């Protein structure tokens, strides 16, 4: 694994991957959302509003996956002290926050015609909102710590610890609908029990989720490359100034 943690080797793999992930992910997402929205069926109870799910559900998964990425990369950074892990963790923050925000917004738009309310403080909705605020706090902490470290070239250890601790919200979000009574419906798709979503809606949904994941990966790679380039630039500037 350390072989890939070398920035030069990482870039060699990341450059082509960024393009592939971006284009395939973007096209797949558009295609599957279009499939679901224009060609998919309406729901027997919800009617047309079920079509919001093709963005809401992938956004929810990726909002949570984004923090899982932050937590795993942060743990790797703390254990192996590898700067690339820290860069990866910070790169997950913005796309994760965007997907969490989209999940909340589209859920609210869905809730109005379905439940009859834009927002309710039930377990699932509240824990998802907490996730969004955690992202904001993480980004603020990351930029503050990088600024403070500045010349010292610190590793952003506080940020990493926060990223790791914040992961406790993930099981809360997941189990909120199982353990607490919530307005939000229970789990529809589970690895053990299969899915209670009909195939005509499930396939476009899964396609959209894969597409959104690839797009997420592309954004993370772009942000990692940007930060690597900025670090390189800073080091060269400093060397120029010294000579």
């Amino acid at each position, binding site marked *: 694994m350390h072989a890939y943690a070398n920035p030069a080797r990482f870039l060699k793999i990341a450059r082509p991957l960024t393009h592939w992930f971006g284009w395939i992910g973007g096209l797949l997402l558009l295609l599957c959302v279009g499939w679901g929205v224009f060609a998919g*069926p309406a729901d027997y*109870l919800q*009617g047309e509003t079920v079509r919001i799910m093709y963005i809401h559900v992938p956004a929810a998964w990726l909002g949570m996956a984004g923090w899982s990425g932050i937590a795993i990369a942060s743990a790797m950074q703390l254990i*192996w002290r590898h700067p690339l892990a820290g860069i990866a963790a910070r790169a997950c923050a913005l796309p994760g926050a965007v997907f969490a925000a989209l999940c909340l917004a589209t859920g609210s738009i869905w809730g109005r015609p*379905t439940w*009859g309310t834009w927002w309710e403080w039930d377990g699932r909705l509240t824990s998802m909102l907490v996730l969004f605020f955690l992202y904001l706090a993480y980004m603020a902490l990351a930029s503050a710590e990088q600024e403070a470290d500045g010349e010292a070239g610190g590793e952003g250890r506080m940020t990493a610890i926060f990223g790791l601790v914040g992961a406790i919200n993930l099981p809360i979000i997941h189990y909120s609908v199982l353990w607490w*009574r919530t307005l939000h419906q*229970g789990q529809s798709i589970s690895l053990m029990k299969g899915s209670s979503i*009909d195939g005509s809606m499930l396939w476009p949904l899964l396609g959209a989720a894969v597409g959104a994941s690839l797009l997420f990966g592309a954004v993370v790679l772009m942000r990692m490359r940007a930060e690597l380039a900025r670090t390189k630039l800073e080091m060269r500037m400093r060397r120029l100034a010294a000579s």
Partner: protein
Amino acid sequence: MKAKNQRLVLIMVAVVAMLGAVLLAMSGLKDQAAYFYAPSDVLKSPPALDRPVRLGGMVRKGSLKKLADGVSVRFIVEDEAHAIPVQFKGILPDLFREGSGVVAEGRFLNNQQFVADNILAKHDERYMPPQMAGDQHKTGRVS
């Protein structure tokens, strides 16, 4: 032990401890964090009559009745064990169905009577096109 392995163990212990704390807290909060009362909770621990609460369950089939004034409705909210009549004045959400989930916001007049000032339709986790639904949607569970 090398410093690297020490950190690995330390972080694993920390993660396990955090996980344990959260799971413990969540199961402890199970009752407080519930978004609504189920009818059988009302039997077990009667709610305070003077504060607003939410009552959630299934709308009993055939129980929905319009009252004489034309805007009030009555229906029965039930779970596996118990049923409570609910009275509501206002517009029901589109997804409100007999045999489907509902959350009523309001207060108890007594153990046997609930007056709602807002009704939310609770959706379940099944999604399917209408032609497939048949009469499957007539059953459901609110946990």
